[in-house]
């Protein structure tokens, strides 16, 4: 940019400040000379610096200031002076001096020390201590000490600019409590660069218009006018808008994957009886998952109702001896009261059980999915939450098989950003074969466990559906993939609702 163009970019504030910089480099002076506020001058200087016109310099210096006592003594006089004044005309006892001067006891004691040291007073013991002034004292009273002179200075005072006697006085004052303090003073000033000196030499009084107005457009007065050039590289204040929560954004994407694959959504209550959460899924009543330390049970209402007797009977018999499923069952006596216990759902697989129970043979084939909140009895910490989201899916079809199950899973995780997946044997009470999915972390170069799946056991399917046909099912969590994507390391951030974090979080771009 040549110097003329540069001159045209100048903002009115810059125009005001620039010509004064050479003569009045300090910020303080520039504020005085321009009549602008300090913020305005600073902005102008900042802009000019961005354009390479000047350099802002900051000088740090040690300065001395009066502290509370110092300010008080400046008005009332130093205690030792007030002491001398009190005894100037007559000999007094300590109590009388205290009364006359209004000094505090510790102030008076330090005066005694100082004045005795300077031989300014005489002490006589006559029952009580009596104090009188000496000739030396009288001289001192008349003369203004270095310390007193120092207190009258303009503060803050630059320490490096002090004269010798001032330094001496400062040393003495520092020994006393609360008289002076030192501070680091930052003084800003600007100095023109070579470019700046050239520019300042130019005629920068510009005829450029600062902004285009509707009036100009109406009257056509814009014709022939120049508009001030902007420095378009300049930073602008940040704004932020309305926003979906980043977790919900990710959830919507997960839902979209299943919709695209032709799945139908299922939803259901967050609190369910243990019948649906466990029994219908062939989870034995003494299974550890039903323990208090894993599941949140409800205090009141503690129990709910069991569904249709036909289903309950089929489930009971299946648990007890396998019913007609071809299984041996768990070989115990099933208790309907355990099945009535209400619990916050620990997985969304019970939605699949509910869906199976509602299906009629003519509805097949069916594919269902859900994404929903689940609960687990955990203490909150950086990697554990008591609420989390689970993705659920089932495919109910005569011809569905294990390879198909793996196919869906592979597709899902690939769409979630993990094209490389591996499958390992696993155990879940309600699937057989069961499979655990690991995905390969593209950055950390290691396998990451993301969730479980399998083919529902006949002991699950037949009591609910009336016959045993293969049902491929999966229920991985995806909190870890969400954290991954957003670069979150503390899982609690998913529910922290820090507005700044939500405002600044990047958008889910899948």
């Amino acid at each position, binding site marked *: 940019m040549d110097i003329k163009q540069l001159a045209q970019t100048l903002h009115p504030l810059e125009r005001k400040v620039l010509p004064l910089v050479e003569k009045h480099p300090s910020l303080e002076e520039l504020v005085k000379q321009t009549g602008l506020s300090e913020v305005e001058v600073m902005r102008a200087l900042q802009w000019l610096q961005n354009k390479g016109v000047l350099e802002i310099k900051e000088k740090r210096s040690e300065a001395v200031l009066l502290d509370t006592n110092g300010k008080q003594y400046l008005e009332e006089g130093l205690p030792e002076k007030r002491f001398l004044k009190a005894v100037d005309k007559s000999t007094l006892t300590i109590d009388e001096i205290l009364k006359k001067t209004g000094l505090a006891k510790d102030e008076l004691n330090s005066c005694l020390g100082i004045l005795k040291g300077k031989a300014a007073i005489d002490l006589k013991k006559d029952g009580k201590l009596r104090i009188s002034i000496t000739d030396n004292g009288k001289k001192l009273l008349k003369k203004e000490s270095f310390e007193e002179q120092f207190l009258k200075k303009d503060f803050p005072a630059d320490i490096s600019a002090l004269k010798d006697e001032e330094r001496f006085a400062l040393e003495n004052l520092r020994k006393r409590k609360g008289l002076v303090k030192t501070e680091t003073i930052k003084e800003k000033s600007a100095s023109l660069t070579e470019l700046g000196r050239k520019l300042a030499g130019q005629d920068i009084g510009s005829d450029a218009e600062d902004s285009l107005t509707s009036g100009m457009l109406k009257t056509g007065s814009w014709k022939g006018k120049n508009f001030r050039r902007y420095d378009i590289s300049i930073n602008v204040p940040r704004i932020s808008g309305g926003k979906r929560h980043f977790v919900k954004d990710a959830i919507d994407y997960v839902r979209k994957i299943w919709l695209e694959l032709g799945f139908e959504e299922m939803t259901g209550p967050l609190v369910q009886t243990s019948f649906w959460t466990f029994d219908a899924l062939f989870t034995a009543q003494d299974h550890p998952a039903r323990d208090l330390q894993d599941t949140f049970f409800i205090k009141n209402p503690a129990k709910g109702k069991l569904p249709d007797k036909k289903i309950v009977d089929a489930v009971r018999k299946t648990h007890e001896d396998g019913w007609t499923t071809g299984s041996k069952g768990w070989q115990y006596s099933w208790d309907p009261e355990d099945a009535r216990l209400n619990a916050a759902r620990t997985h969304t697989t019970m939605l699949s059980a509910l869906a199976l129970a509602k299906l009629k043979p003519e509805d097949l084939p069916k594919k269902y999915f859900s994404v929903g909140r689940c609960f687990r009895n955990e203490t909150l910490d950086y990697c554990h939450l*008591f*609420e989390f989201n689970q993705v659920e899916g089932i495919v109910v079809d005569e011809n569905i098989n294990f390879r198909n199950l793996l196919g869906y899973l592979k597709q899902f995780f690939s769409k979630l950003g993990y094209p490389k997946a591996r499958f390992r044997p696993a155990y879940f009470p309600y699937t057989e074969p069961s499979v655990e999915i690991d995905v390969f972390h593209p950055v950390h170069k290691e396998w990451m466990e993301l969730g479980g799946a399998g083919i529902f056991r006949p002991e699950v399917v037949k009591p609910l559906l009336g016959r045993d046909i293969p049902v491929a099912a999966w229920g991985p969590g995806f909190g870890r993939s969400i954290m991954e994507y957003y670069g979150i390391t503390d899982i609690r951030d998913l529910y922290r609702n820090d507005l700044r974090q939500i405002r600044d979080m990047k958008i889910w771009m899948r």
Partner: protein
Amino acid sequence: MPTVTFNKDVFEKLVGKKLPLNQLKDRISMLGTDLEGIEGNEITVEIFPDRPDMLSEQGFARAFSSFIGVNTGLAGFDVKKSGTHVKVEKTLKIWPHVVTAIVKGLKFDDEKVREMIQLQEKLGVTLCRDRKKGGIGIYPLDKVSPPVIFTTEKPEKIRFRPLEFPRELTGRQILSQHPTGRKYADIMADQDEFPIFVDSKGIIMSMPPIINSHDVGKITSDTRDVFIEATGPHLNTLLVALNIIVTSMADMGGKIFSLDIIRGKEKMTTPDLSPSTMKLSLEYANNRLGLELKQNEIKKLLEKMGYSYSKGEVLVPAYRADVIHPCDLVEDLAIAYGYENFKEEIPSVSTIGSEEPFTVFRRKVSGILVGLGLIELNTYHLTDRESQCSRMQADMDMVELSNALTAEYSSLRTWMIPSILKVMADNKHNEYPQKIFDIGTIFKKSIGTETGIEENERLAVGITSENADFTGIKQILDYLIRMLDLEYEIQPVEHPSFIPGRVGRVTVNKKKVAYIGEISPQVLSAWDLQMPVSCFELNLTDLFNAV
């Protein structure tokens, strides 16, 4: 799930083959155990609860050796008659069953004693469900004089020195003073008599399933022959537990002997290690897996998993607890085939995807609010009474958890505005104005549902700034309802959480759907908020039904 640690050298010796480390790691994972890690000479694995037989180093090595093709097929175990018996005199109704075995010629050392105790403990925790389904005891045979009697006795008459305890205790004292006694006290606490094992000399051997006698029920590195018992309410569990222990000991070099268990006129002989038979149809297996395996392939694969197979019949080893349906055999087929060898395939099941209409509605509502510059939240359903009621100057009937870990999250929320205020209280350091909303579930007691709880989806919107007021919040409500092509009315109402005269009830199609207003200063100071807040809470379920 239980984690067990094995000695790698011993393991490799038992397996009969040494694999390179990475191959070893891979094969362990692909057998169906979660490998925690291999460090130095220690292999740590998590055993899935369906395979208690792999909790012992011998059982694990047996399965592994077969899986990698070294020693495949059904493992045979010799059982000889011991010539002695166990007499069952009296049993408790809650603790009726007993099974026993003798194993001789063991060469224990400290390491093996530790292993046996680990196995016994892990079986007690997993297969026996923390001893609720049964307990296991092992005794040095030379300290016991057979025949052994299983009976019951009044707790005060039971006196012996429990394992690792300095002195004798009575039955009751064991439950209150011995650490193991205290841990399992619940199982026997209500009983008038406790089960005991007594030998022919009248010496009390143990008080199952709680603790053995220190004098006659402690195995050491000098022990060569052992007597093993398992007692409890669930016979199948006991049989499997016993089989797992004796087969592990046999793999250690011991010889198994059976005993007759005589109860009046009934007689049962344990252990019985003869395999059970299960039918497996070729078609069923292939359909489930999506493979086209032939008879001989199935045979080979099943043998890799420790079974034997002949013409549709599978012999299942007596230590397998989990094979209760042919689908369990199908899984083992899949494992033997190798999960990594399956070709994934998305089938052509033609169905049409569809969302729940309410989900669409909810997303539209979020979209409208985001368009107004509001930020969506993601809040918990769990909260506490203080946030929901006392801070809100309100009193409501809440759905509470029976086993919450912390008071802070002990109830399910009954309304949403407290969730909004909590977020505002957590964000006082952040930039104002704050305009936020969340959609979530609320819980109320109700007799009309299966659980006795009614769940509703609610929307809560809150704005807070120096000049957040009724107008500002009503504008948002007004815009939202207009965009949904609905009409609403607001009637003045009293609500303890809002400033009197600045709170209204919103109706749509005569249905009460929302409260709207300015939050009262009492409520704000209870939340330690220093900015005015106005908000509304809208029943989305009802509004949806009105659309």
